[in-house]
């Protein structure tokens, strides 16, 4: 088992959200909760260190755009580098989760579909 992913799981989830469209912070929180059927409901403030870290590493870039309320909002956009990292990590996660599922399925006493 890998001790540390090259991208943390939260970062992976954020990158996958941005793969579809550019989003701002609150929008990401709502979308994440919706897509995961409320399984992932992170502390909202902790999203921003993740986003700023991804921006620092070049996986996302940000821009300011005027919101309908007139306030300036900071949107995040997935970069090409971020897209490549997402693809790589998603493949790795798929392999990893597949292997875990396979082990669990073959475990006696666990009734998993």
């Amino acid at each position: 088992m890998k001790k540390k992913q090259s991208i943390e799981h939260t970062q992976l989830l954020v990158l996958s959200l941005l793969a579809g469209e550019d989003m701002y912070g609150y929008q990401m929180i709502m979308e994440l909760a919706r897509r995961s059927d409320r399984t992932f409901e992170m502390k909202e403030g902790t999203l921003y260190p993740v986003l700023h870290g991804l921006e620092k590493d070049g996986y996302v870039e940000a821009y300011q755009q005027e919101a309908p309320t007139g306030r300036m909002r900071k949107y995040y956009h997935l970069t090409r580098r971020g897209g490549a990292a997402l693809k790589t990590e998603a493949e790795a996660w798929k392999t990893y989760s597949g292997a875990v599922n396979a082990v669990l399925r073959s475990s006696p006493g666990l009734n998993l579909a």
Partner: protein
Amino acid sequence: MRKRPTVTRRRAALRWLVALCLLAAASHVLGWYCMTPKRALRSMERTFFTEQTEFLARVELPYFSQELRLSGGPDVTLLAGYSFSWRSGWQGSNMVILERQRDWPFTAEWYGRMAVRDHVYTEYSYIFGCVEDPAVTELEIVYTAIRGGHDQTARLAARDWITGENGRRYFLYAMEPEEESWERCCSVTGYLADGTAAGTLQILDGRPYWE
């Protein structure tokens, strides 16, 4: 709706670094701040309207925190002092230009700098030039003290030549420093392989002339 990109620290730092490099490159190319002695040489060549020359030799100029560099081209031989300071970059100064004369057996010129230390005047002299005629195999430099200083003689042979582009032969000789030397004369005589004199050039009495 207009998008206003956010600039990360890394991007801002890289932009400033690029701007710095561009300013440094422009300063170097335009001669505002020469990063190399070669650029300083090009500036001086342009100022005095000589052709482009190539560096041939370099000697430290004691006491002046400079180095003397000899450079040569098809039409001129140059000797100048070069120094670097953080304030001005590389700069050339005190350039002496020796125009080549292809119908002469050799050309020669004197370059001198005076230093004062504890009220003692010391002169550092250099003789430089170009051996035009391949038949000339030796040069004799005779430095005669008239008032102050002392006589000096030097002989330069093939081992002392500095070969430039297209096989052109140059020379640069450092005389011994002279203290309190107020009047002197200097001549350079070229010799052929059989010992015959090819001519004597007086070089410290105004413009060089043949005896």
